[in-house]
């Protein structure tokens, strides 16, 4: 890449440099990796559009290691409690924290399997800032006390990511009442190996549940009580 002057010769290295500065389109990761070698080895700033997932990636370099990062604003994960499940998740009483939901299902996005449906961890693998929030839907019956939801970094027993905690006080009730609490929107820098877990709890001695099902009212309306987690990549 340079400023061109009259009578300059164009070499193959110059052409490859121009190619590297363009928006390169590939059908698959294998095709990309097979082509981008030698003069066209990945360099920071290189842009590729992947037809397999219709996402544009930019090559970034963090600490001497290269990564293909999705463009800022890319939705990484949108996970909900498994649709159709009829099993509510019992929350242990007395303030014990629990992963916000089990049997998560991909509700439109689980980019590069960054969310594990077995460990319930969001591990994006690309360094950068992430915007995240979760929703926990509680079903508390007659139980008083507060319900809370938050996001944890690198371990379900770790302290909440600052600014992610949100809680509400439903109050005692003789009716079976359910309500949702969003975590606060949090922006957090994640390194290549960092992971996030969505948690929930209640602090009373009685039992309560996280909803895991959808119901249809007598009037025919579909109620969806799924808890969910979303994460968006915001870049470096």
């Amino acid at each position, binding site marked *: *890449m340079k400023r061109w002057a009259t009578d300059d010769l164009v070499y193959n290295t110059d052409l490859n440099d121009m190619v590297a500065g363009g928006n390169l389109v590939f059908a698959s990761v294998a095709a990309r990796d097979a082509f981008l070698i030698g003069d066209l080895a990945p360099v920071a*700033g290189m842009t590729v559009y992947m037809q397999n997932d219709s996402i544009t990636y930019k090559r970034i*370099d963090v600490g001497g290691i290269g990564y293909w990062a999705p463009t800022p604003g890319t939705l990484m994960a949108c996970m909900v409690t498994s649709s159709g499940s009829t099993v509510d998740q019992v929350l242990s009483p007395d303030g014990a924290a629990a992963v916000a939901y089990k049997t998560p299902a991909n509700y439109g996005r689980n980019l590069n399997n960054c969310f594990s449906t077995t460990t319930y961890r969001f591990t994006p693998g690309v360094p950068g*800032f992430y915007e995240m929030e979760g929703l926990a839907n509680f079903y508390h019956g007659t139980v008083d006390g507060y319900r809370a939801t938050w996001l944890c970094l690198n371990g379900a027993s770790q302290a909440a990511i600052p600014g992610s905690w949100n809680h509400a006080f439903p109050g005692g009730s003789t009716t079976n009442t359910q309500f949702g609490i969003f975590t*606060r929107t949090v922006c957090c*820098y994640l390194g290549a190996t960092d992971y996030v877990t969505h948690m929930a709890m209640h602090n009373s001695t009685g039992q309560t549940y996280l909803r895991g099902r959808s119901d249809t009212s007598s009037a025919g309306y579909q109620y969806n009580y799924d808890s969910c987690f979303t994460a968006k990549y915001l*870049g470096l």
Partner: protein
Amino acid sequence: MAVRNWADGELLTSAALNEITSSMTMRFANAAARDSMLTGDLAPAVGMTVHLADSGMTFMYIVVGGTGYWAPLPETLCFYGRQAAAQALAGGQYSVITNFTLADHGNRNLYGWFDAAAGRFTPKIPGVYEFFGGVSMATATAGGAGYTNRCGMRLNGSPIAASENWVNVTSGSYAPVSFNARKYTYIMNGTADYMELDASTGSATNTVVTSGMAPTFGAKYLGQ
């Protein structure tokens, strides 16, 4: 002009090559290297894209009102801060939340537009910004007519009703309580416009900064 259909036998001039160069994503070590090279035929032009190795970020050249800017990509996080110490909130009045100075999980302050101590964000690129934030209060108590517990955004010193979120406490008290302002999108003029996060409470209390409850404030650039 290089952006055209080329035919066999056409000569490729240096001007055409420079125009091709200027339409690529150009890679520079830093802003100084960028500014040194992008002169003459390669002077910044609308739509030009550069990637800076020092920040790992990509910028696009835009012109607004005759002034050129190297703008980050849409959805870029401009700033995000966490309150470092509990703040006293007087009852019955709005209080600007300040002291977002605690470095934790990667604070961000792109271009230094955020005065973290004062809690004020004054962007210098005009455009659309999305704001978000929230607080935790040690207690939320009924009382203080007209100022029940709320959190919202504040533009140029005036609260924005559309950004407010309320926790109405009609009797007794809750301790603690956490809630977000509503996310708010606004076109900032890139000169004097500034945004803050504020909160109000019925009776005097303090913010809570422990564990995950700390007040936070942030914004993303969404483009033009």
